[in-house]
């Protein structure tokens, strides 16, 4: 397996080089640069803008710019954010904990709900309950997350006053205190619920279909013939087998955890990676934008590898070599 992983990791290198080309050229192809939207005769000076463009190398030939960028990235220097005037790495590190916290909470919610709904639907397929769950799944898939976010805020924050509508923590609390931790949890629940409940669909349906399929298999019939309790058949024999395909999702979840939720974070003013990414695109903050896109790509590749390796671990029938 080690050999297999190494082979896969080596295989990623050409892929990453290609991705870096695409990321870089797409970023540069976007019209404008960080100074385009800044023209304001009362505050800026055309000379300053020209000077900065020169200093940042925007006037160099494109291959020189690419080389400068990629050389920096390889040496661990992701460049400096033109918006925040700070090293990109520092900003990403600052936002990362918020995003991970939100993503883990929402993933937890997703898994819990998906398991409950999926197992119920798989056990009793084609009943009213199953159809309702399917209906909910399609509904959740269809509703765009910004609508879900705003409706959630309207009901739970403005009408019922249960949760705060913005930010990641109450104003003025000191880090590390109990009140701070409580406030963090209070602030994360609503966005996490919105994110979590809206993305249960694929997990639920996947689990349901697999349970139905497995319940028709020979080993289930054998278990039934032996007189094993129905609940044990489902909760132990079938579930264990049906979970294997779900492992595929784990790989993708890795990206979700780090990549943040672009729209939900923005609506809830929850300063994480997703909000940073949107900001960086609209202000043409190249170094942040490209670093994040590269990060997402690397994570996707790693996530895939992880999923494949986990497959091998979970299911001895699959052999990696």
């Amino acid at each position: 397996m080690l050999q297999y992983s190494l082979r896969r990791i080596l295989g990623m290198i050409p892929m990453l080089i290609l991705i870096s080309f695409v990321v870089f050229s797409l970023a540069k192809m976007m019209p404008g640069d960080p100074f385009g939207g800044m023209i304001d005769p009362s505050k800026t000076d055309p000379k300053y803008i020209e000077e900065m463009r020169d200093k940042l190398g925007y006037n160099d030939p494109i291959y020189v710019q690419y080389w400068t960028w990629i050389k920096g990235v390889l040496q661990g220097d992701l460049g400096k954010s033109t918006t925040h005037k700070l090293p990109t790495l520092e900003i990403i590190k600052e936002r990362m904990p918020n995003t991970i916290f939100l993503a883990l909470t929402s993933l937890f919610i997703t898994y819990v709900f998906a398991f409950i709904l999926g197992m119920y639907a798989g056990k009793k397929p084609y009943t009213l309950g199953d159809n309702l769950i399917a209906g909910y799944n399609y509904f959740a898939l269809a509703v765009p997350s910004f609508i879900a976010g705003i409706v959630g805020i309207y009901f739970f924050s403005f009408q019922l006053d249960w949760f705060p509508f913005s930010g990641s923590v109450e104003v003025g609390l000191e880090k590390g205190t109990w009140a701070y931790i409580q406030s963090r949890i209070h602030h994360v629940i609503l966005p996490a619920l919105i994110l979590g409940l809206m993305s249960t669909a694929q997990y639920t349906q996947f689990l349901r279909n697999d349970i139905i399929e497995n319940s028709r298999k020979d080993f289930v019939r054998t278990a039934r013939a032996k007189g094993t309790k129905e609940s044990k058949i489902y909760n132990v024999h079938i579930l264990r087998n049906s979970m294997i395909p779900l492992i595929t999702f784990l790989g993708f979840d890795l990206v979700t955890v780090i990549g943040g939720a672009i729209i939900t974070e923005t609506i809830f003013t929850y300063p994480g990676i997703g909000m940073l990414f949107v900001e960086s695109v609209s202000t043409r903050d190249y170094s942040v934008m490209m670093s994040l896109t590269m990060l997402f790509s690397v994570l996707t590749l790693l996530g895939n590898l992880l999923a494949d390796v986990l497959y091998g671990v979970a299911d001895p029938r699959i052999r990696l070599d």
Partner: protein
Amino acid sequence: MMKKKSFLSLVSILLVLSLFLAACSGGSSSSSSSNKEGGDTKTEGAKTDKPKDGGTITYGIDGAPEGVFDFSFYQGEYDANVLQFINEGLYDYDKEIKIQPNLATWKISDDKLTYTFKLKEGVKWHNGDELTADDFKYTYETIANKDYTGPRYANVEIIKGAQEYHDGKADSIAGVQVVDPHTFKVTFKDVRVNNLDTLWAYPMPKKYYEGIAVKDLQESKKVRQEPIGVGPFKVKKVVSGEYVELERNDNYWQGKPHLDKVVVKVIDPSVAAGALKKNEIDVLSVRPADLGQINKLDNIELLEGKASIYSYIGLRFGHRDKEKGISVDDYDKFKDKKVRQALMYALNRPAMIKAFMNDKATVSNTVIPSVFWLAADSKDLNQYKYNPEKAKKLLAEAGYKDVNGDGFVEDPDGKPYKISFGHYAGPANFEGRAKAIIQAWNDIGVKTELASGSLIEFNLYNEMKENDDKSLDAFFGSWGTGYDPDPSITWGSNAEWNHGRWINKESDQLIKDSLSEKAFDDKYRKDVSVKWQKLFNEELPALPLWENVNIYAVNKRLKNVTMDPDTIILDSHKWSVTE
């Protein structure tokens, strides 16, 4: 199986990239947020003679500050919102945007080159240090330093010897002299009436920044996390991307502020109305598009101030020779003054303001916003009232007639005449207003089409203007003039931001006169300014449309709030809350 996986990963990368593209298109709406539009003005909120001490208010901003909390380095408007609470300048402006003393008073030498500033005594930085002339010397030397990373050098370059210091040929700026701890002299390179407006006014704390190299200042903790100033509120806590908590500065030189705390908090515009209704936000700058919902809230009062922002339709006269830095006059479509005037008469501006701007803007016929004392009286200017008949007559006089009977005019040589009009993308009302302009011109027989077929993404649009894209014969634009209405930077013949490339010697001469030594006489300065505006009004190198209005929603519990054209954060030490 493994093959399928690598295909999947490719798909997922594509997804990430498509997300990236989706985000691009989302960016335009925030870029155009500077386009605030509005009507009648109510600049003062509820008053109280017996302000109560205490209380916290929340000042909402609809985007995250960049986190650079020193005037000398900041760029974003959200950072400015925080800075206006914590620091102040040598001078500020009255309601007519005339300069007035603030931290200092000044005397001008007879040759108009040297200004002697006398700082108020007893003004203290938030850390207790006294504000002194050395702080200003330090500020000017920092900004002129070759390692300086901010955008303000243009505001210091005008001082004598700044260039030499910048180039490393001098140890100090010759034109800045500290006389005593509260007095300093600034000598300028040239006599210009707006030297003072241009001169950098905001001090940096020399002692507090001691030991930090100029190139590291912008990134330093003291600028980003623990900034200080001399203003009514001091920074207690900065939480990046979320809020800045400010507390009362008991030693504020104009008296102790009434409020205990001000929280500057980031909120998403989509929840603004709800947050205002719930009293979660006390002050918020509002776009006219959102007015509908906010108008109905009874706990909210709307304040409006004439903005120093105007919108216009630019017309192309040539292109810019970037090498030489000059405009070249080589585009004949709008050469005839009568055509330009006809295009202006064709526009029903009051109707457009009503339809697309919630009636929150005022018709304008000049490019010096009326809030300035330098603005021409409207009776001195041709009002260009909507008159399609006159427009058609003017076209005919200029020789633009419909020769081939297609309903549209041909140029005097009988060749087809067509205008390609560009507008940038943004809120929903932009589409309507672009169509209205096109329709108005088609109605007088001038064939007009929307450049590139749809509204253009804002960044791309700016790039096209900068590069004199041929598809923009005419283009919609907006300028904010800030506190200095000097038109040279946007309408001077060779100015980079004179996007229509209008070349006019008379205009250049008038602009020059308006900044000359003689202009130190206010009457002369105004006369020349009015003369220039009359010229602009007659020549119409661009079609002025309307002036915008800044609108703020203010919770009724907050008292003694006033606004000037640009900001509501004015005398915030006088603000108080009722309960």
